[in-house]
């Protein structure tokens, strides 16, 4: 697990009802009992920690927020893109 992944797992654990539950890259967020309002707080924490912006919309089913691994991939691409294009996250 790289820095991005371990930081995200740490953030997820902070918001999980049962932080001892095992978190792997393939774990679905719904299996961690993460609901829409939890997700709003998690996205906020991620944005704050990585200095990025994720235009996540709770009204839409987004593939990026299905599993732990998909969140990590999304954040990694935003972090990598943020230097080249500061507005990339908001696009």
């Amino acid at each position: 697990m790289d820095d991005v992944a371990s930081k995200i797992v740490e953030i997820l654990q902070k918001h999980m009802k049962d932080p001892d539950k095992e978190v792997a890259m393939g774990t679905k967020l719904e299996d961690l009992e993460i609901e829409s309002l939890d997700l709003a707080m998690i996205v906020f924490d991620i944005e704050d920690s990585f200095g990025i912006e994720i235009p996540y919309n709770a009204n839409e089913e987004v593939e990026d927020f299905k599993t732990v691994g998909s969140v990590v991939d999304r954040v990694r691409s935003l972090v990598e893109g943020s230097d080249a294009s500061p507005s990339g996250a908001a696009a």
Partner: protein
Amino acid sequence: MTQSNGTRRVVVTGTGAVTPIGIGVDDYWTSLKAGVSGVAPIQRFDTEDLYITIAGEVKGFDPRACLRRLKRDKVLPHADRFSQFAGVAACEAMDQAGIEAPIEDGMRAASIIGSGAGGLVTFEAAYRDLFIRKKKATHPFTLLRIIGSSAAAHVGIEYGIKGPTFGTVSACATAAHAIGLMFDFVRRGVVDIGIAGASESVLNYGTMRAWQAMRVLSPDGCFPFSKNRNGTVLAEGCGLLVLENLERARARGANILGEVVGFGMTSDAKDMVNPDIEGPREAMRQALRDADLSTTDIDYLNAHGTATAVNDVNETRAIKDVFGDHAKNLSVSSTKSMHGHMLGAGGGIEAVACLKAIEEGFVPPTIGYTEPDPECDLDYTPNEGRKRDVTYAMSNSFAFGGLNAVLVFGPPPA
């Protein structure tokens, strides 16, 4: 004019509206009938780095022009925009009711004008002055501008209203609670006349940031009940009604616009954001029982219809639970598709829409409806309004926190 349970009948003799699709009831209603959208890119402040950059702003509102005629309240021209909206809507509603300031027998009158959040625009400006510009003092009216009850107080001062005067607070059900309480005050004889509703003007950078962080706003538009809906759109405005007991209204020869016949209020007591079925359902049932009507008496239902994924499905289910087979015959619409989500003021402006629908026999549409959603399978009056005799209309307001308020309106008593 007294009902079998000893209470008095309550009629509407005035309406006032300040909306993103028209200032004044005539302009507002003309826009509703034509399916005009008031949602547009935000003009009044720099959206800077926001990714939600649209809202329903009230355009062309000139407080000085609108408030020049004030007789008694000298402070309103310096008040927060939400109080100024209320001042303008109150003047319109009182003019229509044929009431001049100061009102006769002020002790028997009430002003219940709520606001979901009060003067947030003033708040932000004051904090920018203090923390960014390092000013030593805020504007001397900052406190008065911020207070959530200031709209009720301003209108009360202007019209010499000396009875119950306060604001309600219940997020997006604020106006419906205010009108419902006034309905109760008038029918029980606490007062004879009153002005009720809510006003909201919270569009600023901080508010947009806070809502953006909730992840419930649409970047594109407000498309209630349509499968492609992707969130609500914030708006600002004010909707007020003058309520009066029937006897008083008739005695002074007032033009009666309609009647308030039922009110229901419940709380989900479950979740701050996710709505439950029971609360909305029971609020609708209470309102019908209060009105002594059966489900088939309702022709038009002005839905809460926020265009969030969750609300619209939940509200549809609750309507079907309450109305059963008649649900399919109901004309439902969400006028938020046009005026946006005015938060606390929504129930006031939607009450005006219900009264106009009854008066003119016309159901305003739900615009932006492009894709049917199998989970939202009622007649939402898609895209075009329609002529229909409307005898009774129901207005739903369901707020964050699970706070529900439902009003039922009828025609002028025969």
